[in-house]
């Protein structure tokens, strides 16, 4: 049994509207995914006002989606998602040290070629999507990191390192709709931009790569206590390693996720896994206020006090 650690996750979202909203429909991707290295011990969702209805489905990428419908006047909407997750360190696939061109070759189409399920799945992450572009300039940028004798692991690690070195983390430089070409020009942005750019580079040289949405454990400043709401959602990438594994890379922090990244879900880019997406009738929309708190089990009581919300017994989620 490899090393593992338990986290409590809280993700609060608060919308306030100028005018009462009569009808609102929200798709929530706030339930962390159950994965080989990630067990979800419990999760729950609280919504206020109480929705007229709620249900859910699993999307095309395997992420769990909750839907809430409100068909009554409201001028505030609160959504709280909470979960306990147990993370264990991933193992590096042995094939990661094979030449990177083998991955590209494995996917190239020739008439009559058969795609095994894992390969077929990888094909979904090989092309352009809303926020990821396939362009010659990106291929050239990535090409300098992938030498002809390099392995998939070393090439991708070098690309991640280059982006980390050359880009500046700057929340003011971009918005959610800044195109990746502009991110490349400015070499500035947030984790989402880092991820979209790295995905563009990888796909431009024929490597399937997906966008990972989730949380990251942050460290409070030295000597300061951990605060509620001090964290944020995070984004990183994972690259396909034939015959059927994926390896994760976090270009914003220049490291391979191990015990401190918690996965919510994945897609081709942010647009596929946006944690909240909704439609309102009336109102006038504002950016919501979002608070994320990631707490290791050992610090839970220090942060939240003596509330009875321990990992066991399992809390019933709203289903």
């Amino acid at each position: 049994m490899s090393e593992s650690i338990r986290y409590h996750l809280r993700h609060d979202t608060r919308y306030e509207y100028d005018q009462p909203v009569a009808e609102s429909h929200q798709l929530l991707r706030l339930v962390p995914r159950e994965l080989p290295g990630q067990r979800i011990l419990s999760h729950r969702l609280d919504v206020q006002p109480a929705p007229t209805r709620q249900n859910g489905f699993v999307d095309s990428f395997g992420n769990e989606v909750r839907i809430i419908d409100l068909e009554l006047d409201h001028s505030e909407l609160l959504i709280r998602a909470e979960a306990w997750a147990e993370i264990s360190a991933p193992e590096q696939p042995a094939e990661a040290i094979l030449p990177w061109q083998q991955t590209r070759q494995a996917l190239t189409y020739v008439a009559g070629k058969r795609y095994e399920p894992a390969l077929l799945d990888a094909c979904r992450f090989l092309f352009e999507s809303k926020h990821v572009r396939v362009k010659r300039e990106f291929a050239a940028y990535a090409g300098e990191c992938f030498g002809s004798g390099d392995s998939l692991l070393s090439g991708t690690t070098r690309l991640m390192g280059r982006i980390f070195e050359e880009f500046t983390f700057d929340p003011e430089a971009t918005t959610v709709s800044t195109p990746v070409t502009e991110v490349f020009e400015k070499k500035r942005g947030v984790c989402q931009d880092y991820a979209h750019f790295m995905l563009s580079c990888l796909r431009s040289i024929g490597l399937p790569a997906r966008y990972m949405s989730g949380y990251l454990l942050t460290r409070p400043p030295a000597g300061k206590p951990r605060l509620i709401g001090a964290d944020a959602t995070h984004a990183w990438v994972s690259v396909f390693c034939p015959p059927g594994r994926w390896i994760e890379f976090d270009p914003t922090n220049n490291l391979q996720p191990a015990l401190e990244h918690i996965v919510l879900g994945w897609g081709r880019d942010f647009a596929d896994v946006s944690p909240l997406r909704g439609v309102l009738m009336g109102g006038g929309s504002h950016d919501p206020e979002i608070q994320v708190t990631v707490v290791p089990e050992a610090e839970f009581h220090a942060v939240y006090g003596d509330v009875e919300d321990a990992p066991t017994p399992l809390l019933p989620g709203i289903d």
Partner: protein
Amino acid sequence: MSQEILATYPNAPNRFDELIDANGEPRQHWAPFVDRLEFLPAETLERRRRFIQDSIEADGVTYNVYQDPAGQRRHWQLELLPLVLDAEEWQPLSEALSQRARLMNAILADLYGPQSLIAEGLIPPALVFGQHAYRWPCQGIVPPGGIFLHHYAADLARAPDGGWWVLGDRSQGPSGSGYSLQNRLILSRTFPDAFRDLQVTPLADYFRSVQEGLARFAPTDGDAPLAVLLTPGPYNETYFEHTFLSRYLGFPLVEGQDLTVRDETVYLKTLRGLRRVHAIYRRLDDDFCDPLELRSDSALGIPGLLRAARAGRVLIANALGSGLLETGALLGFLPAIAQRLLGEPLKLPSVASWWCGEEPALEYVIRHFDELVIKPAFPSMRMEAIFGHQHKGESRRKLIERIEAQPHAYVAQEWVRLSQAPVMSHRHKKRILPRSFVMRLFATATPDGYSVMPGGLTRVSPREGDEVVSMQRGGLSKDTWIRAAAPVAKNTLLKSRLGVIDLICSGTEIPSRVGENLFWMGRYSARCEASARMLRAVMARTGDIGDEASEVLPLLLQTCWNLGILPAPDPEADNQEPDLEPALLAAVSDPAIPGSLAGNLSRLFFAASQVRERLSSDNWHALNRLQAMLNKPSEDFEEALETLDEAMQEAFALAGFAMDDMTRDEGWGFLVIGRRIERLAVQSQALQTVLRADSHQRERALDWLLETGNSIVTYRARYRRAPEILPVVHLLAFDATNPHAVAFQLENLRRYLFRNTRMLGQPRPLQLDIAADHLHAFDLTRFEGRDHEAASRELAELLAEIESAAYEVSDELHRQYFSHTAQAARMGGWQ
């Protein structure tokens, strides 16, 4: 027997000609039509051409061309001569098209299902996952009856050897079947004898199949099926066709906002409540259909539609995501797919094509550039077709470089020499000329397989030798006559004559959107009228006009601020008195100022344009004049006052039309209610402000109150003396015979709200009743005595109560009839 009319008709050696054979003789199935042409005098032909033109104008047949000066509502172009095909040729062609529709449906089922075509290497992943048209959220949805494709169309061309080729497939929401039918309705009357003698197969059965197909496959849970036709709206290029098909098929024409999804079920919002929709014949593109899961900035869609589809609660024709098959890059892969999915050879070949994403294909394309047409592999690329032979040297080198950079985004097709059909010359009397053409054929799903329309939309190029045929680029259309082997029975879905049973007293089911826009028309017309009056009164009292008049100005301004007619000054700003003149001018003619007359006029115009079909042309002219006013901003008070007078005139005219001109159906009531609510709120507010002022100011404001309440004449006739508080208050608040009085609005509102409840069944909002009772009970004699200050204050309170009740009723009507939602929620909150 060579006819004169053929003497000048050229024979192109390397193309197939529909009319004549290689020897220049008319083909057998054309012979009777050619004989008739020969026989008809030039003047008759000219008269028939005019008949077509007149019919198109009378029926309002339009085709909107983007980026064209004639642009919106351009007349449809129908050519005088039909294209004639005989039964022998048609039969196999129709079977082949039906097979192709079946194949396309099977491909959609596979690509949105198990994707075995990709797994087995029969379709490259790039042509599915690399396409914007592949809708990820639709993955895994199985539509009712397994039918993805209800409406299918293919564009066909005839090769020099006489065989037919498919140039492209239309799988999302093929347009043209309605225009084909419209062409038929006109052309069968243009050549009635020829039409009968040639035994042309009628089209009506096909449209009956469309109706029955949707009714049979729709998940109805035992209800009588309700199908609607979903349009993006009047700006769409084929909007005419949407309205035409909607009438012909009997499917209500709806826009996205007319529908709502509740509990995974689609409903039509009507004034009588929500009605379940079982089938949606959509002409709205995939991406715009559901802002919740597809394109989030789409205002045309229905949030939650995908969920209803996922739950199998509604039939959507065609299934969301079906635009995927419109890529020309698939054509080359179809023969193998047909074998795999149908176990049959593909009967209708496609034009030879090479998808450049395959290495050998790319090499071929570069070697044979002169013989090929280069097209985008994905329709979303919006690139025009490029003829290889038109590019030499440097330009070709660049083009090839572009293709090599992203080979999977391009497809090359063989450059087909289109066959020719005759058109009537415009320049020469009674002369026919050859033109290239493309023919669009249609198929629809029925429980017995795909049924093919015996006819089609033939489009000819506008100039001789032109190879690109497109209605967007000025092409002409033709009716397509399929000759039947046996005599045909007359058959149409349109009744030839209406009977008593068909008589309609009022629209049966009025969409909520219509009621909502009429309601806002009422509110905005009353608001425009009121703000024009107020602004005029303020302007008359601004500037150098003596103490007495300017003394009341602060009170007037306060009323305008309270009503939002003038933007209230920012309390944070420094005390500097802002310049009134520019503020007033802006409040008249700057639509960007909140609450300005110009802004309200344009909202009025918008609401009216949403119910255009219900307004008389006089009504429209009044609205158009209003809009014209918006386009000339006022430079000074003189011009502004002129504008205000005009605006009031037009507002009166609109009110007059509403009372005298419009049918008094369920929708009309909302227009009247809207007007009454607005006037009630405005009048209550104006009175309140004056009643709350000190007695000195109050006395001076009475003139102005009568003026803005349009009651000066009545007052003078009744009292023949200067305005006093008691008679003014009586006339403007309590006199139920004065159409500007608060009591009049209350009484009328009550009556129309009762009428609504009787006609539409929703409970009557009661907010105004209590306020009305209080007003009734108010003792006016209190204004006679010492108590009059307290009386003023109390009456002001009462009017405030009435004003907010008016707005509450407005909100309540919205919930009950327009948005169909519930009252406010109570919030809990957490720590």
